[in-house]
């Protein structure tokens, strides 16, 4: 039988043949720089974030300021449009650009916090199930099955109708909709790595379970959590818009993009910009978050599969 050992002798001339292998962070940076989707999506998200944070400074008007003498002013690309209201005004004479700018606050806040809260809840549940196995795992699988069986959107609608459409209520209710995907993914990854030597080593060293889960397991599932979070954030933004569109989410006069579409609906045959502008805003924000999420997945993937 062949027995090839790979001792490295001192006068090794192998460096002539070696290729420079970049370190993982370097490789990620390089991949990030050449990933068009990530750059494009990231820029739009960053732009939306800046608009949301600085809306009070950037918006030309108060989004709640009604001026009934200037109702339904056409946007700038219409022959009668003026630069005073580049996106026109709504049925109550409020500046539409300002309302859309403020609307980004609602979308980003709800999307971000719903994704984070459900990430914390879902990953904790998933890692516990994957790590402890046995009865804990059975119980967690049962919880996930129950969650999957419930018609999420309907339950959310009924809960919102009971608890009202405040931003906080929406964040909490939406978080209940999304935890399962984190749980499923973190559970299976944890199951795979639980048997690895470094976990056994940590156990042998007497590390506590919490310490092993946070110190050894969490870093291994973090990439996946971030990827799911970005995708769930996009979904949360769409669902918030849908709830608000149905009149069961954010309540007027707070500007939410879904609500703007809903308010513009009665005028859409004559003033289509009233639904097109906020609709396009949701579309671009969601597509950018998705592109960013896909980008993060590609960039952090161990061996790039596209």
């Amino acid at each position, binding site marked *: 039988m062949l027995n090839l050992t790979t001792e490295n002798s001192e006068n090794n001339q192998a460096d002539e043949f070696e290729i420079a292998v970049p370190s993982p962070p370097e490789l990620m940076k390089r991949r990030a720089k050449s990933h068009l989707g990530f750059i494009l999506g990231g820029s739009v998200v960053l732009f939306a974030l800046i608009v949301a944070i600085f809306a009070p400074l950037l918006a030309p008007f108060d989004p709640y300021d009604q001026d009934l003498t200037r109702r339904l002013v056409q946007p700038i690309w219409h022959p009668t449009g003026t630069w005073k209201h580049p996106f026109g005004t709504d049925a109550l004479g409020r500046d539409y650009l300002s309302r859309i700018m403020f609307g980004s606050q609602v979308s980003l806040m709800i999307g971000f916090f719903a994704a984070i809260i459900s990430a914390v809840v879902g990953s904790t549940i998933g890692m516990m199930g994957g790590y402890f196995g046995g009865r804990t795992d059975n119980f967690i699988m049962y919880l996930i099955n129950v969650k999957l069986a419930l018609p999420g959107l309907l339950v959310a609608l009924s809960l919102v109708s009971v608890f009202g459409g405040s931003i906080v209520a929406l964040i909490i209710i939406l978080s209940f909709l999304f935890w399962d995907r984190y749980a499923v993914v973190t559970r299976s990854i944890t199951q795979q790595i639980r048997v690895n030597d470094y976990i056994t080593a940590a156990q042998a060293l007497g590390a506590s379970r919490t310490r092993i889960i946070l110190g050894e397991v969490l870093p291994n599932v973090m990439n996946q959590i971030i990827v799911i979070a970005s995708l769930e954030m996009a979904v949360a933004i769409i669902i918030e818009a849908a709830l608000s569109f149905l009149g069961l989410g954010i309540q007027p006069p707070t500007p939410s993009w879904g609500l703007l579409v809903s308010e513009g609906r009665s005028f859409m045959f004559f003033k289509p910009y009233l639904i097109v502008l906020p609709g396009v805003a949701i579309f671009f924000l969601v*597509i950018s978050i998705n592109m960013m999420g896909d980008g993060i997945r590609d960039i952090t993937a161990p061996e790039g599969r596209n």
Partner: protein
Amino acid sequence: MARFLLHRFYISILVAITVSVIAFSLLRLSGDLAAELAGEDATEDEIALIAHQYGLDRPLYVQYFDWAKNAVSGDLGRSLFTNEPVAEMIFERLGVTIKLAFYSITLGLILAIPLGVLASIKPNTWIDRMSLGLAVFGQAIPNFFFALLLILLFGVQLRWLPISGNDTFAHFIMPTMTLGIGVMPQFMRLTRTGMLDVLDSDFIRTARAKGLNPMRVLFKHALRNAILPIVSLMAVVLGFLLGGTVIIESIFALNGVGFLAFESIMRQDFPVVQSIVFILSLSYILLTLFSDLINAQLDPRIRLG
């Protein structure tokens, strides 16, 4: 196989019972039912009388078992708003929703599977990028917005299609397009990654080494393996469509279960809402159970393992 099915069945029953408890609690979350039934100006005595009449003064678990017993025999109670039997209200509208869900998933699959297969055999080409682009579009566009755009284009501008109602097939075209585009991305991505994985596997190399026609390699050997997760996803998506058509049904005034649910939520008609939640959960459970059966049929490792 028998053990696997038994286990699945046991879990399903457990989940169904839990879901019924949750659906039942939804009704209780809405506050004091008796007070609501009695109306705004009712006195304490009147509320107590109504509570007694409806059996609302009994302990909660007794009420639950009572409700569950009736539900099993097909009696889901009466609507607070119209006083019609809930079971009848739902049953009447189920056809429209099932039709819409069926059309939508069919459209989604017709778009997704060929595109996913093409994208997987020609990765990183224009066809791959185009189908990924379509998937990203379908994923990112809010369905209520897409529906309104379709109405503007086909209903108002071109006047080709009716914009509300559910009388003819034409009424279903725009709702189907909206939902079909919405469910397409998941199937597309799953087909693509599934096919990429399978095409990379040893047994595909064997099939090629056997000199089989490329079409045979692709459609017999590869797709048959890649289709397994798609069957599971179909059950999930169908379950989602049955419950997730709320928005689309209300935009196009399709008189289905989703529309009924939406109306009932708006007028706080909770016996209807809880029944719909329960029935949709049950159908999801049955659908996934069914898809497991199909998968076991398709995959000998499950069937005989």
